[in-house]
């Protein structure tokens, strides 16, 4: 309850009590807050068949998050898991190309839209499937020239719709491939809920590690668990001398207060295969395959260690 000048009393000398925001139930007819709550509940319900939400981020761009996400998905699949990927990079999607799903279409099913699947059985939802290259996303708006004020909201609404409308089915792992941006990591954590577990990708440069350190700091303010970090491009594989040679200085001044899940060398051959949508698990002789397999093993072990607490958090999120 607050006070307001009495009607007709312009000098404010007499005040009457009027209701405040909290005194009024509802918003008069639109129920906007209830609609948003319903969206969140529907999302949680649609993800109820997903055992583990694994978010692959970094904060830094160009460290190989998308390629690593697909490689991890392949390795987790090889270990007998049901795996899908959500490409959360709406504006620079990579997963459709990595999974050779650029010419797929979305087809409505009886329960949401079935998830397009790669040849080796990994589900992939990516804007790259919906919008063939080179089309860029143009969010149309009545507020022209002001997309900085609403675009993030729109993007998260679209991600919410993708998560809520796809028929994910029963999954052991849903991997979410994030776009760059430290501040956005926290926003994804809020969207996906406390059960989402993060894996951060870096390269052995202090520039990248410094940004990843910021992401660790940002995620430290959320209830989400960070499983560890992956050091990508840890040297490159030289096919001439059949050795991994250094790409970055071996000494780093930036310490990451997280367990390292493993290091993966850059393999030019893998890069060429990725462009053609060929999976790393189809080429097990590649030098990066075994390190990725070991990282997948490590992730499974760490996830199973906290499976009971994750289940508790999911249950809480669904309420």
């Amino acid at each position, binding site marked *: 309850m607050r006070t*307001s000048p009495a*009607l007709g009393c312009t000098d404010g000398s007499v005040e*009457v*009590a*009027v*209701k405040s*925001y909290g005194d*009024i*139930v*509802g*918003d*008069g*007819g*639109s129920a*906007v807050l209830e*609609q*948003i709550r319903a*969206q969140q509940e529907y999302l949680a319900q649609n993800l109820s068949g997903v055992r583990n939400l694994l978010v692959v981020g970094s904060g830094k761009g160009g460290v190989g998050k998308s390629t690593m996400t697909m490689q991890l998905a392949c390795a987790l699949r090889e270990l007998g898991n049901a795996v899908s990927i959500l490409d959360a990079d709406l504006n620079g999607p990579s997963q459709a190309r990595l999974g050779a799903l650029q010419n*797929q*279409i*979305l*087809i*409505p*099913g*009886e*329960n*949401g*839209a*079935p*998830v*397009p*699947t790669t040849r080796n059985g990994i589900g992939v939802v990516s804007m790259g499937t*919906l*919008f*063939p290259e080179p*089309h*860029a*996303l*143009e*969010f*149309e*708006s*009545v*507020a*022209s020239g*002001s997309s900085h*004020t*609403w*675009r993030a*909201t*729109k993007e998260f*609404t*679209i991600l*919410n*719709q*993708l998560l*809520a*409308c796809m028929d994910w089915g029963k999954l052991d792992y849903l991997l979410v491939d994030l776009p760059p941006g430290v501040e956005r990591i926290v926003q994804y954590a809020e969207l996906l809920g406390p059960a989402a577990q993060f894996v951060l990708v870096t390269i052995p440069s202090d520039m990248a590690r410094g940004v990843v350190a910021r992401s660790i700091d940002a995620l430290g303010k959320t209830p989400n668990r960070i499983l560890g970090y992956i050091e990508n491009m840890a040297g490159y594989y030289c096919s001439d001398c059949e050795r991994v040679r250094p790409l970055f200085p071996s000494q780093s001044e930036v310490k990451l207060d997280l367990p390292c899940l493993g290091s993966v060398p850059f393999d030019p051959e893998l890069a060429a295969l990725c462009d053609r949508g060929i999976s790393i698990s189809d080429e097990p002789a590649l030098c990066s395959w075994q390190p990725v397999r070991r990282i997948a093993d490590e992730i499974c072990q760490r996830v199973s260690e906290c499976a009971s607490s994750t289940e508790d958090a999911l249950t809480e999120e669904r309420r």
Partner: protein
Amino acid sequence: MKFLCVSCDEAMKLMNVDPPEDGSLTIVYRCSSCAHEIAMLTNPYETQMVSSLGVKIGNEPADTEGASKCPFSSVVQDMATGGEGSGAGFPWTPDAITRLSNIPEFARPMAKIGIEKFAQDNGLAQIDAQVLERAKDFFGM
């Protein structure tokens, strides 16, 4: 946002939402005690912000992005005119239209283009549930 009739100290009820015009929504509220009405006129920034949340105002979508309800309609238009869609305007049976609502709203125009192209390539005359099942099988879903 809530509206209060100060003289009655009563919450006002939403009565009507006019379709967006020049980026502005007109939302009329009435006090159920004294019948006093006010109209809230949003500026384009406010209209777009509500639209971006994917919620409805009153009984009407707060969508301001045209009849397609797709934020990417110009891209879809490019795809259709670029020969990637049939542009044939296939008839959709009611059950197929119902199923289409299972796809995120922003993705429906693209899905329609893809399905109609599939129908055209296979010499089909209309889109019904059987065609959708056939397309699912074709694409290995």
